């Protein structure tokens, strides 16, 4: 049980990598990249977890009355989500343009250069 959450993160990351390498569709590849990224959310939140702890928000919890989970990794996970969303948006915009210019979204057919 002690390492299971970390191994889940590894599994999700590798599944995403496998999808990226064998992808036949760029939109599918962008989705696989998002899967890889979600592994980092699992890893970060697993690192910050503490048994029996609550959220690090003290609006309705008396400070010091209960243990709280690590807020630093939660903030990092938030950064991760934002960066992930922007990267996905930018990549999808690129896919839209590739599809228009080349008429295909299969990465294997995108071998020729075109101005």
């Amino acid at each position: 049980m002690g390492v299971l959450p970390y191994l889940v993160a590894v599994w999700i990351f590798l599944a995403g990598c496998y999808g990226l390498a064998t992808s036949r569709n760029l939109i599918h590849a962008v989705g696989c990249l998002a899967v890889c990224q979600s592994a980092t959310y699992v890893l970060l939140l697993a690192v910050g977890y503490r048994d029996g702890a609550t959220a690090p928000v003290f609006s309705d919890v008396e400070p010091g009355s209960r243990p709280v989970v690590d807020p630093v990794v939660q903030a990092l996970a938030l950064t991760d989500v934002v960066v992930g969303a922007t990267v996905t948006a930018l990549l999808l915009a690129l896919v839209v343009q590739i599809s228009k210019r080349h008429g295909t979204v299969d990465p294997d057919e995108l071998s020729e250069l075109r101005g």
Partner: protein
Amino acid sequence: MSPRLRLWLVCAAGSGLAALLVAACLDLPGFGGDRHPYGDRAVDASLARRTANTVASVNFDQRAFDTLGEMSILFAAVLGCVVLLRQTRDEHRARPEPAHVDRPVRRYTLLVLPVALLTGLYVIAHGQLSPGGGFQGGVVAATSLHLLYVGADYRALERVRPIGVYEVGDALSASAYVVTGCAGVLAGTAFLANTLLPYGTFNTLSSGGTVPLLNAAIGMEVACAVVVLLARFLDQAVEIEEVRSL
């Protein structure tokens, strides 16, 4: 490279990577352990500055400079999407036709839209107190506007969403963050250091020094950025048509 060879290569490299990652995981501190030195220090620093939501304190006080970088990434990505998804010379803009919407859908969206918008603004405003903050609330507020596209049609959405205003809002709120940081420098402390304003009373809207200001700037920036981003994608889907293929 043939697909079969590539699959072999992926499997070989993947199993190597998997072995390394599993070895690394076995060496990590145990899941659910009680030792979180950085977390404990972040909680102490947050309470010292009377910010109830420690995650907001980490984002907008202790790591405010990193959040500036994060905001710049968002800004740059939106800029990139605007450039990539512009109307090119061989495309023209078609007026979107009014679409038929079932009455229950229309009624439901018009009912939910103000609630969703208010929820977004609430989450932004209470970022330093309760879970949420500028990033989360900004996304909620921005997507709530797009309920109009579901409930009415694209032209109704375009009327409440003049893109130019949101692009200016995006830039203004990004500069508001930097200006708040520079105010610290002018006051004789460091860039983005939270020592400028009084910390206020714990667990009230005005607590936390500059945290609520930076949080509001981020909220506005994210809301504007998401609106601009979605507008560019919707333009591609609804309005822009290709005249001839290359």
